[in-house]
């Protein structure tokens, strides 16, 4: 098939180009950019804004080296991603090209990257726990199959280590790693970890390294999630690791600014919420098919930053990592109530009781800083707080089963309190205290 070609590029910006007039391209459709003389393929680009007078494209490989003479070849299809079981164990870039130096892949099919919304009526209410062996997650914020939940952490926290630890024990058929703006050592770390844990054969890695073209990073979640969705449609339970969505949001911000969009908060476009939601909402347990669980990473300076703030309203909770510990106070699994009612009779009550005591302990800790925690109970609380941080908030180490983790909770309470001080019912105290 002969494809239409034009060369009327009028404007070349940082990640965008404009073409004069109306070349007849449709919204979100793909064109190929070719070197004017040699016809060598330079990049693909996607039409994002079309008017009678001009058309704006996002250029996947960046605009360095493009000129007004560069040729544009029409492809007349929306962006799609290749899909094949042969992708397992392999590495790709943000637009789905092989990136591990291995042989090309013959794709079984092309899947749309439009990420159409799943009809809510074919969603199942999530009811299957995913045990991690991390007491702070399993007891206090149980992870549930098909959940979408990020790790919130400062940029220097070991969030990738936590992500990889959760992935290692994950009960999933396929793991899709989607890394945006990664440093090389992070990419290398994940690859090593997935290999060591024997998971590499069920893993597909999509990676965008810091310094790679921005548009490839911007596209990456859509490509990775579309492939994940195809596996889920074929009945597989898929775990997607999205790291780091703050990097992704920053690319989104840059591109919006290149387009002169009016920013809302801290330069981010007003659509940040919808854009994040479109990706995270791919997580689902699908009736008659498989499931997609998304665990993300969102780095932050402050919880009030637009990216973690918007993310928190979209995802089903968050794991909050601070000083290497998973903090109870700001962590939340919104789906835990779906699964922690039929584990052990003390699961929910002890979770509430310990959280409430910890909140009191935090108050006592603040009071202690001004020398006001001088009564015996405050002293108890302070000792409890230390114990809790050391023995419950530590995410790294040997895997602990749920029963053992719950027993550990009782041990901590017993070390510091009288039964009535815990707020737990007499029935539970009678059953578990001794």
């Amino acid at each position, binding site marked *: 098939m002969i494809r239409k070609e034009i060369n009327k590029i009028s404007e070349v910006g940082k990640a965008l180009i404009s073409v004069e007039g*109306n070349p*007849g391209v*449709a*919204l979100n*459709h793909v064109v190929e950019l070719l070197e004017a003389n040699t016809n060598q393929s330079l990049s693909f680009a996607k039409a*994002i*804004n*079309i*008017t*009678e007078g001009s058309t704006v494209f996002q250029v996947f490989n960046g605009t360095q080296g493009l000129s007004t003479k560069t040729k544009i070849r029409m492809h007349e299809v*929306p962006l799609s991603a290749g899909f094949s079981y042969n992708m397992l164990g392999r590495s790709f870039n943000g637009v789905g090209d092989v990136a591990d130096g291995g042989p090309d892949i013959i794709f079984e099919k092309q899947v749309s990257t*439009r990420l*159409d*919304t*799943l*009809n*809510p*009526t074919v*969603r*199942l*209410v*999530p009811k299957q726990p995913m045990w991690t062996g991390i007491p702070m997650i399993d007891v206090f914020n149980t992870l549930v199959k098909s959940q979408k939940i990020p790790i919130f952490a400062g940029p220097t926290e070991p969030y990738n280590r936590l992500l990889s630890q959760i992935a290692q024990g994950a009960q999933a058929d396929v793991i899709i790693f989607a890394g945006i703006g990664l440093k090389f050592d992070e990419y290398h770390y994940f690859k090593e970890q997935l290999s060591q844990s024997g998971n590499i054969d069920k893993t597909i890695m999509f990676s965008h390294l810091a310094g790679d073209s921005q548009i490839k990073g911007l596209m990456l979640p859509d490509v990775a999630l579309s492939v994940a969705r195809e596996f889920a449609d074929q009945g597989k339970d898929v775990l997607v690791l999205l790291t780091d969505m703050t990097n992704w949001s920053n690319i989104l911000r840059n591109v919006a600014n290149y387009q002169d*969009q*009016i920013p*809302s*908060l801290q330069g981010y476009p*007003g*659509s940040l*919420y*919808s854009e994040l939601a*479109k990706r995270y*909402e*791919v997580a*689902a347990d699908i009736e008659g*098919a498989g499931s997609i669980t998304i665990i993300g990473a969102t780095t932050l300076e402050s*919880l*009030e930053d*637009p990216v973690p*703030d918007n993310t*928190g*309203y*979209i995802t089903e909770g968050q794991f909050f990592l601070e000083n290497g510990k998973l903090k109870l*106070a*700001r962590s*939340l699994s919104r789906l835990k109530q779906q699964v922690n009612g039929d584990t052990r009779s003390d699961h*929910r009550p002890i979770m*509430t009781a310990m*959280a*409430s005591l910890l*909140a009191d302990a935090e108050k006592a800790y603040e009071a202690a800083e*001004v020398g*006001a925690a*001088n*009564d*015996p109970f*405050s002293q108890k609380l302070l000792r409890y707080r230390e114990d809790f941080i050391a023995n419950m908030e530590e995410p790294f180490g040997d895997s602990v089963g749920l029963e053992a983790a719950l027993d550990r909770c009782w041990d901590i309470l017993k070390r510091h309190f009288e039964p009535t*001080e815990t*707020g737990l*019912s*007499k029935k539970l105290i009678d059953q578990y205290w001794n």
Partner: protein
Amino acid sequence: MNERNKKRTGTLISIQDSLVKARFYDDVIMGETAGISVDGKLLQAEVLQIDPDPKNADAGIVEMQVFEDLTGAQIGDEVEFTGKPLSVLLGPGLLTSIWDGLQNPLYKLGEKDAYLVPGMKAPALDEEKTWEFTPGVQVGDEVSGGDAIGSVPEGRLDHKILVPFNLGKCKVETIIQKSSVNITEVVAVVSDIQNVKHELKLAFRQAVKNPIPFKERVIPSKTISTGVRVIDFLAPVGYGGTVGNPGPFGAGKTVLQHSLCKYALADIIIMAACGERAGEAVEVFKDFAELDDPSTGDSLMNRMCIFGNTSSMPVAAREASVFIALTVGEYYRYQGYNVILLADSTSRWAQALRERSGRQGDIPGPEAFPMDIPDQIKGMYQRAGADEGTGGSLTFIGTVSPAGGNFQEPVTQATMDATGGFWGLSQDRADAKKYPAIDPLAYTSSVYDSFISWTDRNKMLQTLHEANGIDQTISTIGLKKVPVEKYVLYQKGQTIDFCVMQQDAFHKLDACTRPERLKVINEAVQKLIDSPIEFGNSEMEDEELKELVKTRFDELRQWWKDWNSSAQSEEEITDLPNKIEQFTLQGEYAL
């Protein structure tokens, strides 16, 4: 709207996200809807603005928002204008339905594809289902817009078949006998004063941006039993009232909304899931269907309908979804029913307006929201209200998701200004897992007389306030320097907070407290507040005494918490005030 029956069309000249411009030569009406043909699919759009065409004096340019994904749209694609504004289909079958934001039934669409593909449509209400119609007027009777011409049973409700609101005075020409009909069949013919005949069916379309009128609007006076103690005690809402419910993420807005869905006493609950998580709406229509309606014992879904324009669905339809839900609420209010509309979240609705105004290039107001956002929010809440003329009401409870949890942001501020009630969720309380995290010291309510007297409510509040003050003193100067009497008062406040204001939304008994039980609890609370309690004896050291106070109150709280989750028989229930009396009389020897 358009006199000429000619097809009016235009062609696309600009496409950006969900905003398009088209050139037209004929006439275009502000607010009308249009269909855009893209790749053989017809996408729905709404006219936002009409401008002259700088390039062509004979033409004009119309700006539209499109409610579906525009991938594949090209310059030159055809637009056909409908002449009709955005509207909702009103009639029997609304209840138990689950739609997207534009009233497409999601179960019907799900039969075609697991995914919501642009261009998919299905009739809003089941056209095959038949209803037992009983006429209520006779040939020759005079009727006008909003009058009932008959009724059909819809579940337990008597669904009145109304003359469309846009009709004036009419005469009934024909009306069918009692029979089974579906919503596409004509049940009556009426003629207006110009002698134009109108065929009436069980269902009709109503423009969503023109409110359905009140017959006789009054101030809300009857309190809703929501089942949530902190609300019913301190921040009650009346039938027809408005409430803004802001909270940072994780503070418990969703769980509170779900509690209201399950336990608030009303004829009808409408959920507008606007730009929020799909999973939460799914939980409502899949899991709540198995729960019982608190007043009838029916399946809870029989009193509900849901608009699920969730966060990944097209943003432009978010605005529509809230107006559509409001119009359905007004329709049932006009029939005399008490309706509660839960809109989650009005911030997403406001953000949709922000995205749109940004694309339109409007000069932005604070945080880039449109300048007129406060007026738009006020206008929306104003559509709620109580109607003495019909006996119905529409209560509007909107959640607000403030950026950064900061209540000073524009949408929260405008909402506080627009609503009669305000339930502020507190991050600190949520962090301490004190749920519901409505701060008992940060709320407003325009309802005065509620399930307990104004005086009792104030006393309760006073104690919480004082206890909070003492708590702050303890954290700054330490417990040692606080006198024992103050410490007792602090413990009283803690007890009221822990045992009354906090409630376990997932416990079958504790999750919902009805007025009779509230009265018993109030009796106990008032006793606890009023009685000076003597602990120990004069020989005890101050520190020892405080230890004793704490132990006794700990025991009381444990007992009361057990009572919350176990007391069911009348004897067990009335045991609470007795126990408090014993406790206050005996102090140290209590319990």
